[in-house]
């Protein structure tokens, strides 16, 4: 059963890579998020004054009535759980497409090593293209365009970059240029940007601190995503080579 094999392999690969990223995040990324939240101001509608909201430090809920995990172990637990879930989702994409490759493509079958290369390609698709060339990784409290527009652009960018890389790899030489064009489309359209860049908190000291935190955050997410996707790709390649039987 291809579906069951893919699902089980993706769960195992997702747990390994998501857990590793969760630990990396716990030590390197979450401290930056917590530090940025100390400068987060309450929503303008609830509290029009931009200053004097230090008491909201550590609170990340936008709506005070909505449930959210308690800071500490509960929040860390949910974060690592979410990392694993995202790992499983990405592993499902990766292993499914690798299985499709082995089934249909006239190219060498996947191994752990070529899987790692697929991981680098995924890093380009899911991180470099949408985040480094578009919607930069942001700490909480950064001004940004309407969420739905950014999510829409993110999805478009991921889909077109993936399609572009697939065309570059699989299409005949004459059509390969089309892959670059596909991947360029979201950047020609342009990521949705806020009217003015900056942070919700307008205190100069807060802006200085948040700018530094943003730089650190960008660096550590890029490093972490690199590790995550290469591991995810290599493990997915191994899983497809060993466990996903399509002719059974």
């Amino acid at each position, binding site marked *: 059963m291809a*579906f069951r094999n893919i699902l089980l392999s993706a769960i195992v690969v997702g747990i390994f890579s998501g857990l590793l990223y969760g630990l990396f995040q716990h030590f390197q990324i979450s401290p930056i998020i917590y530090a940025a939240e100390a400068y987060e101001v309450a929503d303008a509608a609830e509290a029009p004054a931009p200053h004097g909201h230090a008491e909201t430090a550590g609170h990340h809920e936008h709506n005070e009535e909505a449930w959210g995990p308690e800071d500490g172990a509960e929040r860390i637990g949910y974060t690592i759980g979410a990392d694993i*879930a*995202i790992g499983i*989702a990405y592993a499902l*994409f990766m292993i*499914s497409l690798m299985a499709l490759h082995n089934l249909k493509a006239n190219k060498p079958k996947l191994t752990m090593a070529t899987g790692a290369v697929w991981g680098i390609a995924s890093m380009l698709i899911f*991180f470099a293209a949408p985040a480094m060339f578009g*919607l*930069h*990784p942001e700490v909480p409290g950064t001004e940004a365009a309407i969420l739905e527009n950014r999510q829409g652009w993110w999805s478009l960018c991921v889909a077109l970059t993936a399609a572009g890389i697939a065309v570059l790899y699989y299409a005949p030489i004459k059509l390969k240029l089309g892959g670059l064009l596909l991947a360029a489309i979201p950047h020609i359209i342009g990521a949705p940007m806020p009217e003015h860049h900056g942070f919700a908190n307008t205190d100069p000291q807060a802006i200085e601190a948040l700018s530094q935190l943003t730089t650190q955050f960008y660096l550590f997410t890029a490093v972490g995503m690199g590790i995550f996707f290469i591991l995810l790709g290599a493990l997915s390649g191994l899983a497809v080579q060993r466990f996903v039987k399509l002719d059974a």
Partner: protein
Amino acid sequence: MQQQAISTEQSSPLTLSVALQVVSAIAVGAALLFVVGFAPMDVAHNAAHDARHSFAFPCH
């Protein structure tokens, strides 16, 4: 296990049903990614908040 049911009902060539299973697996991945990374409900957002930021998903 709906996918299994679909595949056993088909009498068409095996490769088609395998392809269909592969597409189903991608669909499950997309649904999972949406719930954890993009769903707008406060509960989903708050639970996965730090992970959403760390994967550089659009957030807030």
